[in-house]
């Protein structure tokens, strides 16, 4: 889990390209407890199995939506590399994922827009479990440098598009 050795350029990307997927799991109870502790959220449905299944009638401990968001951002960040920038990401929580599932984040290029100092790449994305069930569809926009150009400015300044 390190930064890519080589940064990707706007010209390297084509509509329809699939990004390398990111897989996390199986996501066990300790994974969920560790995340709850890290951000100090004590919602029992993520670590108290009797409460989750008995009181809230859930199928099991739920994987936090906030943890799934992290995996999406990580995939995008690592793909953008040290000279790009993840500008926007959106998520919808359409389905639950439960403890011990293995999740894979996917993303696909849907559009490209050229700006004066860098290019914008639009993506659709999501998270599927081992059965291929989609739980977290979303979209993102990543800024990438032009080949031979400067890195995307940091702090990022939104272009007029």
């Amino acid at each position: 889990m390190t930064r890519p050795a080589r940064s990707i350029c706007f010209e390297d990307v084509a509509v329809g390209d699939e990004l390398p997927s990111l897989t996390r799991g199986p996501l066990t109870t300790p994974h969920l407890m560790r995340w709850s502790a890290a951000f100090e959220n004590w919602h029992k449905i993520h670590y108290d199995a009797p409460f989750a299944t008995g009181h809230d009638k859930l199928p099991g401990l739920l994987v936090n939506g906030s943890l799934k968001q992290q995996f999406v951002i990580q995939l995008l960040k690592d793909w953008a590399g040290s000279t790009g920038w993840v500008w926007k990401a959106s998520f919808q929580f359409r389905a639950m994922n439960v403890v011990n599932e293995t999740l894979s984040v996917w993303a696909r290029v849907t559009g490209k827009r050229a700006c004066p100092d860098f290019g914008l790449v639009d993506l659709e994305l999501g998270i599927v479990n081992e059965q291929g069930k989609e739980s977290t569809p979303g979209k993102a926009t990543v800024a990438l440098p032009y080949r031979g150009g400067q890195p995307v400015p940091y702090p990022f300044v939104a272009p007029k598009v």
Partner: protein
Amino acid sequence: MTILPDAAKAYIGVQAEDEIACDTVERGAVRRYAQAIMDDDPIYWQDGAVSARYGGPVAPALFPTHMFRRAFGTPDPVQENARDPDYDGATKLRGGLPEIEPLKDFSVMNGGSEIEFYRYARLGETVKLRARYVDIIEKQSSKGPIILIVSETDYLNGDGELLMRARHTRIRRRV
């Protein structure tokens, strides 16, 4: 027939007072957070070339959204609810926005979020948030009318520089 009262629409534009996170961006908190999300990116812990672009080690992009924790001297909901079997432990909505009173008996669902990133929070920085209601509209769903409540939260560092902007949609439905 509309289910959205005019009194609820009056909340559009309501902005909460700025809330300052009780702790700065701490190295240990960043380590625990990064390890919990399983992202050991050196930009979170190494000085030098790897983090030079950001002015030094930084926190993961979404870290500012999780900095608004219970401060010293504030009530402890875990202890207060220790004998309540129905207590679910969920953290209340942060950001200081008032409850929309005309909708307080409506059910709530997460309708998704959109986040714009502008810079990372650096180790040692303070972070504050500024939240507001930006839209409250009624829509028809396959299960009947619903109300979408859209709020926007800016996360800023101590110098007032925008780190990120999060737009959340909550779905309220009459129960």
